[in-house]
């Protein structure tokens, strides 16, 4: 039986939802609609006049190779970030799940990176890998690896992936650990009696049972890599060298605020909005159904 609270008062419900609505309208609906309007406009160089140009901004995006390149870079970047963050976090969580002693201390420590702002994280990694003063760069050079992420696109990409994934590992770790601890121990024991060794137990029992967590985290990680990694890119590479790390969200900023192509930038924002809406829909659709066993 469903129980509902029924408000006799006609005003109170609106007062209760008002803060949420105000925040949503002010910080999401309004800017989003501004971006949508802007994406159909083209401004002159001095920002004094703008003309309605229908889908010209969007057509421009897909006409040149630049935008598609950025898309490709973003896909590489986000799948690498999600992949690295998920697999490392899963490994750590499995190990933490086994540890009995000082597990709490370990758990607490491993959450810390999540508290570090992306820009700060970016700066930390920037210094570690800095070709001139960086410790890690120093050791890599000793080992015969010529590290210079300011010139080498692949190295720059590797660095921003590490910096972006590092922070997300903490977040994923928490969810994986909670997921692992929710799996009744008797499943593992039954599998052990059935003759499955630790490795096969993990892949045939534990991993499938973690799949709802896994799916949720994949979506969250991709959204993170798509949208929340601006700070990391800005602090480390600024999209370079030669646009090697120019992911979509950085390109929005660069085109809009540096190159002052407001219409084109807004069109890109709208594209990103479509991406995030799609991901959210996918997530809700699937998390409700498919992954549930």
């Amino acid at each position: 039986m469903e129980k509902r609270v029924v408000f006799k008062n006609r005003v109170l419900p609106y007062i209760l939802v008002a803060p949420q609505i105000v925040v949503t309208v002010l910080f999401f609906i309004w800017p989003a609609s501004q971006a949508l309007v802007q994406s159909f406009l083209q401004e002159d160089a001095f920002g004094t006049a703008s003309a309605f140009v229908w889908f010209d901004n969007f057509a421009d995006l897909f006409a040149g190779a630049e935008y598609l390149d950025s898309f490709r870079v973003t896909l590489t970047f986000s799948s690498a970030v999600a992949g690295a963050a998920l697999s490392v976090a899963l490994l750590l969580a499995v190990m933490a799940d086994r540890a009995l002693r000082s597990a709490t201390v370990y758990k607490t420590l491993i959450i810390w990176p999540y508290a570090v702002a992306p820009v700060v994280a970016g700066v930390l990694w920037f210094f570690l890998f800095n070709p001139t003063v960086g410790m890690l760069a120093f050791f890599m050079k000793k080992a015969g690896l010529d590290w210079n992420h300011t010139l080498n696109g692949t190295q720059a990409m590797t660095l921003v992936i590490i910096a972006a994934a590092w922070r997300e590992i903490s977040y994923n770790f928490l969810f994986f650990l909670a997921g692992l601890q929710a799996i009744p121990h008797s499943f593992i024991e039954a599998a052990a009696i059935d003759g499955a060794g630790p490795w096969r137990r993990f892949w045939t029992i534990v991993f499938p049972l973690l799949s709802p967590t896994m799916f949720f985290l994949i979506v969250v990680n991709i959204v993170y890599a798509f949208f929340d990694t601006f700070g990391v890119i800005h602090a480390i590479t600024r999209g370079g060298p030669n646009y090697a790390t120019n992911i979509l969200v950085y390109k929005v900023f660069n085109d809009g605020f540096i190159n002052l192509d407001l219409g084109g930038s807004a069109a890109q924002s709208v594209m990103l909005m479509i991406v995030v809406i799609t991901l959210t829909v996918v997530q809700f659709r699937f998390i409700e159904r498919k992954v549930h066993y």
Partner: protein
Amino acid sequence: MADVSIRNVTKQFGKSEVIHGISCDIRDGEFIVILGPSGCGKSTLLRMIAGLEQISSGEVVIDGRVVNRLEPAERDIAMVFQNYALYPHMTVYRNMAYGLKMRRMPKDEIDQRVRNAARILELSALLDRKPRQLSGGQRQRVAMGRCIVREPKVFLFDEPLSNLDAKLRVQMRLEIRKLHEDLKITSVYVTHDQVEAMTLGDRLVVMDNGYAAQTGSPLEVYERPANMFVAGFIGSPAMNFMEVTVQEGGQALKLPGDIQIPLNGSALPGWAGKKAILGIRPEHMELDSKGPRTILFTVGQVELLGADTLVHGHIGAGQVPMTVRLPDVHRFEKHATIRLSISQEKLHLFDPETKKRIV
């Protein structure tokens, strides 16, 4: 098929010892029930046989082989868990086939074994279902099917019926017994339910606080409980206990309320004049208005069960509480006094110091 020997097995968690040296020889094909209240260590003992808990000292021998250092998988045992532990993401078929697949059995043989087990357990129509689509009883059967297909040396059951409702429990109890009679696989069954224990077990091990209080056939344990714990634990409602004095010469007992009961032939010379604990089961008393040695019983609460009537009350001036189970329906006024006679062959006497059975 194998016999199992438990030899002086102990278990320590950190510094506290929870199982204090239990020994038991289980013959090939025997159905042993480990019975005890919660927290007595019975599940821990079972898990040590399974290899899910390490054995602190002592030995577990399965089919002539010491298995202390073997992994659960290498012991050739199968276990039914209390919560069934069916893999929720696999169908019934895959649940049953899992153990065989892990042992790299050929596909057609797996198929044959699974279908055979499904037929025995009447699961054939459910092979494509997931565990969550099954009822409690069906899940229970799948859990057993998972064990049967393996054809292990030993079956281990960890309170497998405790999650079922009363009616289903009776039905599954009979099915387990029948399955055992068909397959004749050595079984160790842990439960806190004495009815399950009495009906299923060839022999019982009654556990109390990490000790094996008594080992014997269900009737032995019921008729000659080794100590007060077993006497009080087996039987429902529980046995009545009262302090009595053994008369001079050890020929009779003096009960509260100055009633004397002769001890038929079994004199207790060493106990003359001493105190002892008398145990009488509620079902071993009957209404007797004119017998020579009746005791006066004051009625308190009456529970009508239909087939029986349970009368709770007390005897003597010391208000010693007592429960009587009378066949058929009886209606008594509260505080009424009734006369009861005690079957003299069914008396149990215990040492008040050691709590052990006398004679």
